């Protein structure tokens, strides 16, 4: 999977979980840029991503994420 393809999939997950009709994620997108992406919905996002891709983040990875690009990189490294 390329990073672009992954970003598209993440975009769908975010739209679903946050119930947004309109959202375009970019590498540099952070929680501050997205309505409803707070610490609480973050938990659901992470759990959904884990289930969707069959991966598990460790605690350190979750704590150190800063933006969507980094999230995608971690997922890609786990899928590789």
């Amino acid at each position, binding site marked *: 999977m390329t990073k672009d393809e992954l970003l598209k999939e993440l975009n769908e*997950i975010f739209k*679903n*979980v*946050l*119930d947004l009709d309109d959202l375009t994620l970019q590498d540099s997108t952070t929680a501050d840029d997205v309505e409803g992406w707070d*610490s*609480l919905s973050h*938990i*659901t996002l992470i*759990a*959904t991503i884990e*289930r969707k891709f069959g991966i598990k983040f*460790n*605690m350190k990875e*979750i*704590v150190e994420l800063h933006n969507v690009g980094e999230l995608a990189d971690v997922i890609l490294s786990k899928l590789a």
Partner: protein
Amino acid sequence: MNEYIKQLEYPTEPIILLSKKLKIKKFLKENNKKKIKKNIAVLGGSTTHDIVEILDLFLLYNGIEANFYECEYNRYYEDIMFNNEALKDFKPDIIWIHTSFRNLKNLPQINDSKEIVECKAENEYKKYLSMWEKCRRDYQCTIIQNNFEQSFYRLMGNKDVSDFHGALNFISELNLKFYEYAQKTNNFYINDLNYIASYYGLQEWHDLSSWYLYKYCCKIDAIPYLSHNVSRIIKSIYGKNKKGFVLDLDNTLWGGIIGDDGVENIQIGSETANAQAYLEFQSYLKNLSYLGVILNINSKNEESNAIKGLNHPECLLKPSDFIVIKANWNPKSQNMIEIANELSLSPDSLVFADDNPAEREIVKTQINDACVPEISQAENYIKEIDRNGYFEITTLSNDDLSKNKMYKANAERFKLEQSFSNYDDYLRSLNMKAIIKPFEAIYMQRIAQLTNKSNQFNLTTKRYSQSEIEQISSDSNSICLYGKLEDKFGDNGVVSVVIGRQDNDKLHIELFLMSCRVLKRGMEYAMLDELVYQAKKRNINTLIGYYFKSGKNSMVKNLYKDFGFTLKEINNEDSVWELNIKDYVNKQEIIEVESIK
């Protein structure tokens, strides 16, 4: 959307619920189901956010629209014990104290004496006791209190559960104190966190990153099970439990098809693995019936076979364990509605259990909000039904325990009433007398009026003026009959008119109508009998009946079929029917008929 709503019944896919909760909520809030409103305060010793959001869905699904109050993280004790205007303004109907193993701060130490450990347990208990008593004083509300789930580690290994130094031993002692209080206190309920955690699997339940990162007492995926467990208590408190079962027989209560295999070959008992699975399911149902859950049968079978099966010596459930037994070939949705009517219950308060997905589909599509668990194989039935918590018990009264008797008596009364209004005894008691004769001058006006007024019980809706009636009654090719009916309550006057036109050995029934005031008295059969008698006198051997759909006469769409006619032609919704009358046997014998012989 249905695919998401389905997640609110077993088996739940937690991640779908969690990720679609906003959509599901919107859907549940917008449907037109009537909902009761309740204020629920959730006071957590760990994070409650997602737990509350999912609880909201389960409650909405059960017709409860909740307002929630959540305390700040781990402020459950302070929120209750110290003056709290916000909670007072909130006026909680229910306070749920969501504490867990994580909130036990004073566990026994290995060098503690027995007295010290007992003192620790007592102090811990007193802390909770004081909260409960304060809640009851300040809010007069219902209290739901978690018990404590087991820890994920055992310092002493197996000894942890039996030695007073062990955390596991301490937890079970503390839980026992909670249960004692629950046994003597009304409106106080234990949310069995310990069971839910064990059922989920302690190893998975205690997901430490969920705790360290988010301060959830359990793994995120386990949240729906926890929320569901609490929702069961709440919906039960507010009377949203199901009332009973409507059960299939073949491959649901026993293995095999009794009609094909014979009673001696159905699988039930302790001989084979399959037989044992059905036996345990029957035992589960029988035990539920002792709790006041009512049992009914809805089976595609001859009734005699159904009874034979239930009287199989290995069957735990006997015919007398059921309130209503419907074993016939009608659509199961129709049986289900009739069962509900006989019990004066709404069909959606009964759980339909049937191994056949096609039957489940019929019931689901024909009955609004039908409760139809997806059962799979006999060995899974108990789990697939029990996990849904249809019959959660919050209080157990003598009324509940004798509920089955009460329903049974009601059903008997209903049957008696039904047998009287539907069956011949009732009709006989009416002492009905009819006159069925060719048109007579004094009735011409009334006959013409009836042809113009009758809409529902009218096969052709052909209208006649009075002069047309007079003309046709003098036509030698016509058979014109009027019917007059009286009973012990009075004379109904002329209530039925039939006009037939002879065509050699055939009689075309151009008009067949009856006044609705004498529906279900058998008068139409009396009219047919007399028509056949008159037709035979003219050497007619075939009656031809017509049904012309009018928009108001669908009640007689199948009249000729019920009369034993054969369908000859169908054109849109109009139909033509035929009856050979050579061997016709009179259909009606209750009304005493006066006619011209």
